[in-house]
């Protein structure tokens, strides 16, 4: 009897490899290919090779860089607020002994609402003429135009923070609960203050969890689209135009898929650089 060419473990992997190639590799390769062409859905019979023109065109594309800047601002702002709030809530919940599951259920609930519904909800909640929030703020003398040119992007960050702080909470709470008890007990016996324990023991030991939480949330925040779509449509001006909204516009409203694909690839490169830098900076001693 002839021995099989491939060991069993590799043969078992073949179906998965085929599926992955079909659903991941092929679209990636195809989108890379169209990024090098003038590929328009309304002119499929006349697809022209453009070389690097789509990429070079981005250098002078002011809207693209504005969208990148807005997205970076959004990611840094929203994820920072989510991290601080999420960590604070995780530390509090870590100490709670009674009704812990009840608190968790309440705090996690925003995460389970679809983002487009959250966007529509806040569009009317924060509407300066019709919204409940400005109505009560006005009563105490605070007048805020949440979607004015100065605050619109920040308002989107706040909405994201409302929805995704629970994710940070979940990750960080799991991390806190997995930490060994001994170092904390030893520090307390030695008379260390709560702040010293947090700074010298909790934070260093939580570093891997923090890194993972920041990377996952950061990558997800880069994909912000629904709030922009439901609330501001990128305005006022281009103050809330994010990169995914911009790519959607070029690709699916103007049908210039080649140009949109080149933007998506630049975004991938930028994202990889940021993740690598974050990973490196968090792991260095």
């Amino acid at each position, binding site marked *: 009897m002839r021995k099989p060419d491939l060991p069993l473990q590799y043969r078992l992997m073949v179906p998965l490899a085929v599926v992955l190639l079909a659903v991941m590799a092929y679209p990636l390769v195809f989108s890379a290919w169209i990024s090098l062409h003038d590929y328009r859905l*309304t002119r499929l019979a006349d697809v022209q090779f453009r070389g690097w023109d789509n990429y070079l065109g981005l250098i002078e594309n002011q809207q693209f860089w504005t969208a990148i800047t807005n997205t970076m601002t959004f990611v840094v702002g929203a994820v920072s607020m989510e991290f601080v709030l999420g960590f604070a809530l995780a530390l509090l919940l870590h100490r709670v002994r009674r009704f812990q599951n009840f608190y968790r259920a309440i705090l996690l609930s925003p995460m389970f609402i679809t983002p487009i519904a959250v966007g529509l909800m806040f569009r009317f909640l924060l509407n300066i003429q019709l919204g409940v929030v400005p109505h009560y703020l006005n009563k105490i003398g605070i007048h805020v135009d949440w979607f004015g*040119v100065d605050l619109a992007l920040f308002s989107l960050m706040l909405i994201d923070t409302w929805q995704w702080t629970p994710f940070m909470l979940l990750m960080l709470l799991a991390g806190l609960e997995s930490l060994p008890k001994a170092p904390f007990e030893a520090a307390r016996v030695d008379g260390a203050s709560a702040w010293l324990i947090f700074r010298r023991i909790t934070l260093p030991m939580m570093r891997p969890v923090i890194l993972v939480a920041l990377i996952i949330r950061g990558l997800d925040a880069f994909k912000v689209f629904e709030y922009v779509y439901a609330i501001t449509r990128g*305005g*006022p*001006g281009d103050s809330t135009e994010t990169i995914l909204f911009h790519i959607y516009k070029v690709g699916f409203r103007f049908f210039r898929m080649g140009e949109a694909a080149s933007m998506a690839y630049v975004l991938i490169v930028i994202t990889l650089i940021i993740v690598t830098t974050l990973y490196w900076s968090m792991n260095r001693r």
Partner: protein
Amino acid sequence: MKSFVKGAQVLALATAVSIGWASAGTAGSLNVIMEEVPDFDIVTKMTKQFEAANPGITVTFDAMPYDAMRDKILTSSLASKATYDVIIIDNPWMDEFSRAGYLAPLDDLIKSSAGYDFNDFVGPLREIGEVDGKIYGVPYYNYALGLIVRQDIFDAKGINVPTTLEGYVKTVKDLTGGGMYGAAMQPQRGYKIYEEWKNWLHATGGDLMDASGNVIINNAAAVKALEMYIDAYQTAAPKGSLNWGFDEALQAMATGQAATMLSYNWMLPTLNNPNGPAGKLAGKFKLYEVPGGEAVLGAWHWGIPRNASAKDDAWKFISWITSKAVDKERVIMGGAPIRISVINDPEVWEKGAGKSYFNTVLGILEDAKPLSSGDHAEELIEIVGTELSAAVSGQKTPHEALDDAAKGVMAANKK
């Protein structure tokens, strides 16, 4: 490389084709894509009559929000067999879709339909459906803008409704105060601000492009229109309404916060309906032509995809729903008028919103200009709408914004 391209296209289209096969119209059944708005309900109700008169044909509607329609129509058009046998086409998509070869010409079908009277459709509406000398769309619904005012306020103050832009700006400023705003404006970036401001642009004698196709969006008339628009926004519109669109402006009118708004002409019957959004204010609203008299004309047209399999049945449905008799019934039920004979029909006045309303609508439609046209119409709206928003929000001066809009329009036209 060619085989790779083919392979890529085949796989990309395979999904669309499979979707198409899953639900494409077969003999005796028509799939119709519609926007999920009140006029869809009217068409749905009326279609029962069509099915009763044509027992061999079943009509299935796929209703969806506006934003989902363009993608769906595109996917259906790229497949070898269309998902939809009948589609509705928005004004900015008409040139692009017909030149991309998605739409079947309707000239022969129209000619072969005795008594159809295509010339009875209001001229500017009819012309939107004609591209490069062929007819690709039959009017279904008009989205022309008019000036809707709180007539009781104008009467109480003894003010005439303005017919010029200068008069309008002065009037809305005068009406502002004591919890009332002169104008509920819609400066939301993109489509909404472009649609509203273009009425102002027409009033100052400007346009996007001249007859030769030169971009004139940054000429003196355009700057004047934008400066006046910003002036009105800053002095007569609700504070913090920079992102307001149709819903918010309507809400402000319906709740008595604003005295005027530029909106779709057929919103008048809705506002004057005692069971509608305006409640106790119903009956106090009146429609006029926009200041300057040249309204922006948005319009939906019925069309048949080139790859539709049931074209004859599709035309049977379209010619039925847009026929004089059926259209009259549709307008009486609240649909937006498209035929001159229906607008001038005393029975329609009596059973509908009244003679004055229909006379005004005809006046608006006859002088109206399309929202946008050309192969890049959708993109031009976005480009200009973004720059207008930047100017209204103070990020750019009117000159800067319109110069940037002109550059953007020229660049888009070259693509």
